[in-house]
């Protein structure tokens, strides 16, 4: 996508992004920019309503907004151009990172005090306001000392890390309160999309090589189109190419996909769900559950339809997973005595609202293990495994009232446990109040499900394609435990791994699970980066 055919030279489009492999269409509920506004790569430019949640969608190009093509309230398929962007004036282009597709994070490390009048975009100001950051106190690292989103996020992060100060309170008690602006925990970098979000003309990572077999069979397909085809589950041989020499372009893949997808359900979902959703107050997503106890309110029609839509997307994605992915399963039981003892001590020192739950320890251990066994962290695409450059941990969150959503904690292998806990709290709160960022939904590289709270001992999950592994944790339960020739009773948890046998073998999966167990069992490892420290 990106450089739109038929538009002016150098004009790009901001298109309806693919926010997760299960998304087919979305609705812009709010435009945050208008014609004439300058936007930078990574800026949130619109709020998009998918079947699952309201998402803050980032623009993947820099430029000046030329025209808004799709008004708010209209549901359109993914890939539909939503707005056109003019290139930035030349002198701004390099700063904006359009020069050679360099990752946005290159802005890190540069310093320089913002001189008076250094350009600060409206979106940066808005972000600063959201995060409660005083721009006068922020050191700009952009060209000419301009303050970037990363600077604001970093400043907000510094704010958060000064925990003992009477900083703005954690939003814990407000997680489900409508319309309370939830302070966003800073995302450490301008999000670099890992999924093939079809907006990016220059991939942040090397393009995957198309299948040799395809070329041998004479099918010409662009790398991106091949990736998209794999993503959407469309066989290249069935696609009619309209590019030069009959080459298959991304647009052809989408056309073919649209033919394959049963139109009635998505049409029905759109009518039944998106229409009522527009009418419902945007800030009131609290959904009653079908199996609520006495005292539950009646389901509203809109909420019921929304649950049905989530059910449908989950159904489609999980069916695809079970159809395509040869799962193998491993499990191990972990002694939690040391970890829980450590947590108990730590939580006695922490303010009540910053208490760390055992799940945070399990997530941190999983992230560290994925960093050390990279074969579990990434995607199966184009008949091969593509490792991901960082660990974005998808967390299965059940939405109150029904449905499942798996937003990701971005780049968590290196963050301290306390920070991970704060981010988890924030992410789960926003997942349930329906305000996630696009990158959080699209960028997961490995998913964790924690059904322990539902009282089961272990969970063997279904992999979230195109990921290659899923880690499950059951409930913490006391079990007889033999160690050193002695029998005792210990708190334990059973960790399971569901992994894609195309991407790895049991020996690697076993190494990964054993690493998680080792890290959880000994949160403090002397002389090594463990879960703690």
């Amino acid at each position, binding site marked *: 996508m990106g450089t739109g055919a038929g538009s002016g030279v150098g004009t790009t489009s901001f298109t309806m992004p693919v926010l997760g492999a299960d998304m087919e269409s979305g609705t812009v509920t709010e435009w945050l920019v208008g014609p004439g506004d300058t936007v930078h790569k990574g800026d949130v430019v619109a709020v998009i309503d998918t079947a699952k949640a309201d998402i803050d969608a980032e623009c993947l190009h820099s430029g000046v907004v030329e025209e808004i093509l799709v008004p708010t309230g209209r549901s359109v398929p993914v890939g539909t151009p939503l707005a056109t962007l003019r290139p930035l004036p030349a002198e701004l282009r390099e700063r904006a990172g359009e020069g050679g597709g360099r990752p946005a994070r290159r802005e890190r490390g540069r310093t320089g005090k913002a001189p008076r009048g250094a350009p600060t975009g409206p979106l940066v100001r808005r972000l600063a306001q959201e995060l409660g950051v005083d721009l006068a106190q922020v050191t700009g690292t952009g060209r000419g000392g301009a303050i970037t989103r990363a600077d604001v996020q970093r400043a907000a992060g510094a704010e958060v890390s000064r925990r003992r100060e009477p900083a703005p309170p954690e939003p*814990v*008690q*407000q*997680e*489900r*309160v409508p319309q309370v602006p939830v302070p966003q925990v800073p995302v450490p970098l301008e999000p670099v999309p890992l999924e093939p979000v079809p907006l990016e003309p220059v991939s942040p990572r090397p393009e995957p090589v198309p299948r040799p077999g395809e070329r041998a069979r004479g099918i010409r397909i662009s790398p991106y189109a091949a990736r998209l085809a794999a993503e959407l589950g469309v066989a290249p041989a069935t696609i009619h190419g309209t590019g030069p020499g009959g080459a298959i372009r991304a647009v052809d893949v989408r056309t073919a996909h649209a033919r394959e997808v049963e139109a009635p359900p998505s049409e029905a979902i759109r009518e039944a769900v998106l229409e009522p959703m527009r009418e419902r107050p945007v800030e009131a997503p*609290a*959904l*009653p*559950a079908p199996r*609520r*106890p*006495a*005292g*539950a*309110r009646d389901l509203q029609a809109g909420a019921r339809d929304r649950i049905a839509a989530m059910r449908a997307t989950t159904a489609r994605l999980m069916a695809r997973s079970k159809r395509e992915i040869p799962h193998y399963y491993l499990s191990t039981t972990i002694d939690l005595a040391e970890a829980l003892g450590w947590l*108990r001590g730590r*939580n*006695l020192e922490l303010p*009540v*609202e910053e*208490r760390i*739950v*055992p*799940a945070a320890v399990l997530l941190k251990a999983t992230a560290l293990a994925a960093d050390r066994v990279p074969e579990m962290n990434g995607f199966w695409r184009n008949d091969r495994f593509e490792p991901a450059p960082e660990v974005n941990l998808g967390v299965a969150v*059940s939405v*109150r*009232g029904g449905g499942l959503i798996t937003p990701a904690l971005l780049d968590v292998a290196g963050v301290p446990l306390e920070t991970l806990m704060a981010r*988890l*709290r924030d992410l*789960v709160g926003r997942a349930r109040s329906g305000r996630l960022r696009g990158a959080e939904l699209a960028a997961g590289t490995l998913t964790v499900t924690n059904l322990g*709270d539902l*009282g089961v001992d272990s969970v063997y999950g279904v992999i979230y394609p195109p990921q290659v592994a899923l880690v499950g944790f059951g409930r913490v339960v006391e079990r007889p435990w033999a160690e050193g020739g002695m029998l005792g009773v210990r708190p334990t948890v059973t960790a399971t791994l569901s992994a894609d046998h195309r991407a790895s073998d049991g020996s690697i999966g076993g190494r990964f699970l054993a690493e998680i167990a080792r890290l959880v069992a000994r949160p403090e490892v002397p002389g090594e980066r463990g879960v703690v420290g």
Partner: protein
Amino acid sequence: MTPEEARGVVLAALRQTAPEVDVGKLDPDAPLRETVELDSLDFENFVVQLSEGAGRRIEEDDYPRLATMTECVRFLADGGDR
């Protein structure tokens, strides 16, 4: 704190944590976490609300005494002492 005040704090905390549930109709002696479907993060939120409402810190060791609404009310009304 009187039992009546304590009951007000517990109900307010529950409403905040699980806004879709009509807390007035809950069985006060039903196990709270299962009945209202509170996961560990929800329960932490609930405890934060109780702490603020009661004006004092509640430790993790006290969690077993917060299993039902009745127990929560008793716990707050007693000032946490047994």
